[in-house]
């Protein structure tokens, strides 16, 4: 059923940036060598089931741990395990399996027992397929199965939110993901998930600026009672669990905990497609569609890549300019910096964005009319000409100045806290219950306050620092949350830390 348009208070819509990925999909070559991290997505590290010298085939499970909250990891290529060593991967030391490709065929060995007529399979078999394919580790809390792939059990799930809102400055193309038969596959994937979590109500949140897509879905699902479709404004950070839950369900979110704790599973479109592929086609999760975009990329396209492919291989000859650009994973506001090209990609990647490193000074910069400059204020011509593509670069665009309490940060804050006030408390060292009362634990670190500040104050840094200092002093966010919520799966959550 189609629900009326919804949005939330605060937030900012990043419109029309230069270098958005075109809806073109190119299949990358099979890499000559892959490095597979044994911890991918929402999962703790798994134990390697292979050793150096073993021959592996594409789709073979090379890491699995049924004791902890985790999902199996597969070999993405046919080859020979060269080595297993501990490496630093996104600020964490984890074991990586190095595999040298011997046979670069694209064939993937299917999982046993899949059926294209999936409705004939038993629930147990479906769960097993989802778990064995590794799809169960996707997104913030994974997909619950009885194999401890998430922190809750499938029967505990009350709401399943599937979203394709795309609120970041650079997003993977929704049209591309749901192109052709994928559209129906996606729908089948939702049905599979509904069967897996029978007590849940399914909410499909889509970008309100894509009316055609919404219309197609409404036509397809008009007979189904358990599915609601919500057109949402693509305003950052709408795609965050913390914002999706209040917008869609009008329910308070236990900030600092996960949606799964209140019986809600949030998935995005690729995860649902992965479920369909695992159950109906028996494909393990070793391929991922990743958007390669940004103004510093020669071509803005989508690549279908094998997990474990090294960034260096993917970027070879694809970046513009003499100086190395800044390459960021998933989000320009919160993403991780990827300056080490010897690292591999894994199943949690969605976008890779390259923007120019701009430390050039500009003559009378603040007086420019700004046809291509994005700003929350309407002081640039770009607000009058929204069709002109906007620049994204790493210049700070101004000097640091003291806070003038312009209150932009409060206006734009999606969770309704006052960043400039909190940052002053943290800066002065007044770390006590007052800032907890002012809601510092509600901060979801979306980065909008730092983005919008005309005085260029790193507000997010102050918020993080305040958060850490408070916890060191023994004030815990549990004090703000636990008395008001009935959380599930708290014990299990301790094993796995947030990505």
């Amino acid at each position: 059923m189609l629900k009326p348009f919804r949005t939330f208070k605060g937030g900012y819509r990043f419109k029309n940036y230069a270098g958005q990925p075109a809806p073109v999909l190119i299949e990358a070559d099979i890499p000559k060598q892959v490095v597979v991290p044994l911890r991918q997505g929402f999962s703790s590290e798994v134990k390697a089931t292979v050793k150096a010298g073993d021959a592996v085939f594409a789709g073979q499970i090379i890491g699995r741990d049924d004791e902890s909250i985790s999902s199996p990891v597969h070999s993405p290529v046919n080859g020979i395990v060269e080595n297993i060593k501990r490496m630093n991967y996104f600020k964490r030391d984890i074991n990586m399996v190095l595999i040298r490709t011997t046979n670069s065929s694209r064939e993937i060995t299917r999982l046993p027992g899949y059926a294209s007529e999936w409705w004939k399979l038993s629930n147990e078999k479906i769960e097993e397929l989802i778990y064995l394919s590794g799809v169960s580790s996707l997104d913030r809390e994974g997909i619950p199965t009885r194999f401890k792939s998430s922190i809750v059990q499938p029967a505990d799930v009350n709401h399943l939110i599937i979203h394709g809102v795309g609120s970041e400055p650079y997003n993977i193309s929704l049209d591309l993901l749901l192109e052709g038969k994928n559209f129906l596959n996606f729908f089948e994937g939702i049905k599979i998930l509904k069967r897996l979590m029978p007590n849940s109500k399914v909410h499909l949140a889509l970008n309100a600026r894509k009316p055609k897509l919404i219309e197609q879905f409404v036509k397809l699902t008009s007979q189904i009672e358990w599915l609601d479709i919500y057109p949402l404004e693509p305003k950052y950070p709408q795609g965050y669990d913390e914002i999706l839950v209040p917008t869609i369900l009008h329910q308070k979110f236990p900030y600092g905990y996960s949606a799964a704790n209140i019986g809600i599973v949030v998935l995005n479109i690729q995860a649902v497609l992965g479920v369909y592929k695992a159950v109906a086609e028996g494909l393990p999760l070793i391929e991922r569609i990743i958007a390669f975009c940004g103004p510093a990329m020669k071509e803005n396209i989508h690549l279908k890549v094998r997990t474990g492919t090294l960034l260096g291989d993917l970027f070879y000859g694809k970046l513009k300019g003499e100086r190395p650009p800044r390459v960021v994973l998933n989000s320009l506001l919160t993403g991780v910096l990827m300056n080490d090209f010897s690292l591999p990609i894994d199943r949690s990647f969605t976008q890779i964005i390259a923007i120019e490193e701009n430390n050039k000074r500009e003559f009378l910069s603040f007086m420019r009319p700004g046809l291509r400059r994005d700003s929350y204020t309407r002081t640039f011509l770009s607000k009058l000409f929204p069709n002109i593509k906007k620049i994204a670069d790493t210049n700070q665009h101004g000097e640091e100045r003291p806070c003038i309490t312009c209150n932009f940060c409060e206006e734009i804050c999606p969770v309704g806290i006052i960043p400039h006030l909190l940052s002053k408390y943290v800066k002065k060292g007044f770390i006590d219950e007052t800032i907890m009362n002012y809601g510092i634990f509600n901060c979801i670190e979306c980065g909008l306050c730092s983005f919008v500040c005309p005085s260029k104050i790193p507000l997010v840094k102050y918020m993080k620092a305040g958060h850490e200092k408070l916890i060191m002093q023994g004030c815990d966010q549990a004090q703000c949350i636990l008395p008001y919520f009935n959380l599930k799966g708290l014990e299990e959550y301790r094993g796995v830390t947030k990505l």
Partner: protein
Amino acid sequence: MKLIKDVLGNLNGVIQKNKFLAKFKPVLNAMDEFFFGTSRVTSLPYILDYIDIKRFMSFVVIALIPATLAAIYFWGLHILAMIIVSYAFGGMVEVAFAITRKKEIHEGFLVTGLIFPLILPPATPLWVVAVGVVFGVLFGKEVFGGTGRNIFNPAIVGRVFLTIAFPKIMTLNWPLPSIGVGADAITGATPLALFKSQSIVNSYSNLLFGFCSGSAGETFRIGLIAGGIFLILTRIIDWRIPLAALSTIFVFPHLSNHFFHTTFAPGLFQILSGGVLLGAFFMATDPVTAPFTKSGRWIGGIFLGVLTVLIRGLSGYVEGLVFSILLLNACTPLIDTLVLKVRYRRK
């Protein structure tokens, strides 16, 4: 561009050789930043908004341009001289403090230096302008720690100081504009004073287009309204304070005028006389000294309106806006604290 770069480079060389001149480094840095922007790059949000304080403040200056030009047109080049004196002496205080504190020069002064002469009577002697702006910047801003920490609007502090220190100059010297009303005659009465003494209500079109006496920048009211709306549309100022203040100043006297014809002027006249428009759009909205919470802005605006009308109607002063803004500034921390207390009270 190259020329400026060379000049700055040479100056930098000269400054570094001389020990005394080396103290003036902040001035050179400010010029350098003004012309060439920054070379710094971002860290965690990898992209940042293009707005900076320079652009923020220059937009307030842009919004004041119509009123400034009208003032120069009405009262001649003396206004221009006042503006230059204000910028020069205020700038000196700013630079002196930047040098002793070894800090950067901040842009907030761009606005203060322009607003201050605009709220003075057009015939103010230049030395009085200099004294006022020095006092305003020094005791209104710098003693509190500079931009962002001041409690009071520096321009208002300077103006109130002058009103109290030089009452004759500040209250008796009101020339009429050189157009619309006749020759350069000294009248000695603003529309508000005329109402107070003889209950005369000036024609609204004269008030709107500035064919009446008053402070230099406050009489061309069409320009002020346009500037204020421009600032609201560009999001530089918040719409809550002007709306709350202006509607209070309209509604409250409208009611009181029914009962006390001679004490309270009618609502529309209250809005269109004196410095209400200039104050409500450009001074009460100064982000540093106004309440920052949304409900605090409503409360502050209403507070400002009520005080202005009361001072105008019941006190010996003709114009109550400057005092009201000063009082609002003083109450701002209180208003904000109360709003925060209510908003974050423990459940």
